[in-house]
């Protein structure tokens, strides 16, 4: 065989292999997720293989700290004009409002039939598909309360009493989603920050830091979720040492959602990617995934009628649900006011 002919045949076979390879390779879907979703033991590693099997596609999770850092990631992507993912998962109400500009608003919505009434009423912006929800609340350590001869507060305003001075662990509203929720909750209830600032022992940078201090018995109350009680019961707290505190004024709700990232479906596989991304959002609302949420995310499933584990049965539900301010400008003003008062 002539050398040039051999070279051409070799090139053609390589090109043919390349074409076959591209036809055979599954479509890649990339998801920006909060860290505990993507980490081993989180929801992601459990549901992603199931979805991959269903769709015949490949899914990659890119973890990025917490929900608020996801917005930074979307903003930086928008700045460089290149999105690194097609889906973002883990934005709550205020975060969703801030992220609206980076989200494809043509899909999703919280008005779907199968959603729980609390979720439907959350009023997420267009484009967001809610998948779980929970109520922010103080968790109490009854052993500490007993030691300090304290009774559970019944109202938010009880927290201003002298016996609660330096007895609360909160999160910094500038660096933590639960911290921001507390600040907005306090504003909604008309709390006086100049009085409240004497009551907290510390403002931890995030929920994990605050809860870690609470478990070291640094203070009897920590700002967390009502479902933290279910976690403790599931992990051997038979005596009911850790208990969620429900206030007469009501508790704020947090609804977490996923969405498609704007301008992320480019290239020859864009249409297929978009269809797959939409089916992933549907998959999040499937009974199969929703049943896993209580013991993976320690949140309530967004879909109604999903059976809850026994540990959730004793978790108190608030009589009144408080919806927090979600307007980014108003939140900014509120935070500025908070900063001026507490500094």
């Amino acid at each position, binding site marked *: 065989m002539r050398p040039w002919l051999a070279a051409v045949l070799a090139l053609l076979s390589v090109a043919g292999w390349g074409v076959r390879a591209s036809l055979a390779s599954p479509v890649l879907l990339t998801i920006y997720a909060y860290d505990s979703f*993507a980490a*081993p033991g989180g929801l992601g590693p459990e549901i992603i293989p199931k979805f991959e099997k269903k769709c015949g596609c490949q899914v990659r999770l890119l973890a990025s700290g917490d929900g608020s850092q996801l917005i930074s990631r979307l903003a930086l992507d928008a700045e460089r004009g290149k999105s690194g993912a097609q889906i973002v998962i883990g934005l709550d109400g205020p975060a969703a409002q*801030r992220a609206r500009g980076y989200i494809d608003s043509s899909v999703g919505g919280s008005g779907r039939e199968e959603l729980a009434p609390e979720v439907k009423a959350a009023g997420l912006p267009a484009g967001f598909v809610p998948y779980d929800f929970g109520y922010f609340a103080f968790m109490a350590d009854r052993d500490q309360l007993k030691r300090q001869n304290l009774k559970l507060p019944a109202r938010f305003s009880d927290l201003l009493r002298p016996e609660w001075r330096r007895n609360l662990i909160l999160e910094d509203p500038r660096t933590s989603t639960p911290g921001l929720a507390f600040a907005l909750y306090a504003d909604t209830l008309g709390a006086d920050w100049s009085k409240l600032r004497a009551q907290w022992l510390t403002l*931890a940078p995030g929920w994990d830091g605050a809860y870690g*201090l609470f478990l070291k018995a640094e203070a009897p109350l920590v700002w967390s979720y009502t479902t933290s009680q279910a976690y403790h019961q599931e992990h051997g707290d038979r005596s009911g040492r850790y208990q969620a505190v429900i206030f007469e004024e009501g508790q704020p709700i947090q609804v977490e959602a996923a969405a498609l990232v704007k301008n992320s479906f480019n290239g020859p596989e864009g249409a297929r990617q978009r269809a797959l991304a939409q089916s992933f959002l549907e998959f999040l609302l499937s009974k199969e995934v929703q049943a896993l949420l209580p013991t993976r995310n320690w949140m309530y499933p967004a879909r109604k009628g999903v059976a809850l584990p026994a540990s959730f049965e004793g978790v108190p539900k608030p009589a009144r649900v408080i919806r927090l301010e979600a307007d980014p400008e108003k939140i900014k003003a509120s935070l500025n006011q908070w*900063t001026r008062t507490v500094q």
Partner: protein
Amino acid sequence: MSLTSGFRWVATIWTLFFGAVCVGAPVSALFSRLHGGTLFDPDILSLVRVTVTQAGASAMIAAVIGLPLGLLIAAGGAAAGARSARAFFFNEMLLAIPFSVPTAVAASSWVLILGRNGWLARLGIPLDWSYSLKAVITAHVFFNAPWIALWVAQARDRIPEGRFEAALTLGASAFSRFRFLEWPAVKWSFFAAATQAFSFCVMSFALVLILGGGPPVQTLETAVYSRLRFGTLDVGGAAACAAWELLVTLLPWAAVLFFQARDPGRGARPARERARGVGSFGARSWLPGVAFFAAAVFLLPYLAIFPASWRSIDIVPWSKEVLPAVAVSVKIAVTSAFFVVLTALAAVMSLSSPRLHPAVTTALASLASLSGGISALVLGLGFWLAFGRWVDPFEGSFAAIVAIQLALFFNVAFRIFWPLAQEPRRNLLEAAATLGADPARAFFEIEWPRWRSSVAGAFALVAAASIGEVAAVSLFYSEKLVPLPLLIVRWSAQYRFEAAQSASALLFVLSSGTVASVFISFHWRGARD
């Protein structure tokens, strides 16, 4: 071109490349977002005041403790007679270990000690210092006093025995021995270490966030954190905080180098040899024991983490999750330490060119300290802004983590090597050349013996600090690149606090073990030689 000048050219090119890629480009990208108005925002100016106060108080207390502690350690080594080398080495090791303690371990330990349910409270000592500026300063002092003492002890250890004997023969008092023998020998090491301690305190962020208790205890670094971390992505505000941080850390460095260059006695550094003189502490038999306990005191708080970790040791998934994370941490630490040492050696080599005017050398040495004033958060964001178009750090970037750690720790290695480069054994090198030795052999026979322990020490310190570093890795990790500090953060977010505590203890063992093993191996080697 001679071999030496060839090496110097390569070293200069490498240093410039490092400066441009790891510091220049990220800082320029970030500062291009800086607006003059933001720079003088009253909120930011108030943060500058709080930062300088906090770092100034921390560094000053650490310096006041570190200077006598360093002299005591050196005196303890000198007074121990035949056991002097062993005692001095061991105390040096104890002083070096706190530098490597991961901030997560330090914060957790201090909560266990100072917290409301901590050891002191349970012992009935009503020291309500937790979550306040006092807690932050205490933690910073325990970090930095041993660091300053280490530098002072090493400088004091270089004073030849004969000088002390002469002083004693002439009837010099303890104060006179300190004033005329010890102070001139240690002062520039002391000022350099105190300046470095000030920089560490300015850029400290995990300790301030966890132990400070929130506003009003906040600094420029925590402000950068809140501006970048929480969705609003206030790059302009973060850049303004970073600019102030850079200025605040760079000015003391420039001042130290400026005055050092004008000190007529700065060049008169004798070659390193074991000091046996009695110095200002005198020759007392109890000195070695006291020196050991004084050095060990600064490690004690971190041991608080072990009893709490031991209880949950059986619930940690060691082989499935911890070992892979340890492997990633070690890989990052070894690579970062290698490049830090290489780059600092290259910088020292290029800056010690005899062709450079002393003023230019001083200016460039000040500039070399620039990276020491930039935090990982600032570098990380700058790196993203500068290179985000070409590389996607969100997919995990080992190179980006190493590049940021290189910039973070370069200053530590540079400060260790710079004094050695100031005192080359030119006469011996020239004699070797006259006798026909090639430059490489002359270097390894004459210079390397006095460099190798510093190179190994710098490598160990950087590797140990890198093992516990979490800011750079949290910006550029991926699911295949999760080091141990990040695993601890992740577990905490999943309610796995007890397992996180045990993994923190392992992190402490790894980082302190790195420093200890290098010190021990060099001690054995020294004893064998």
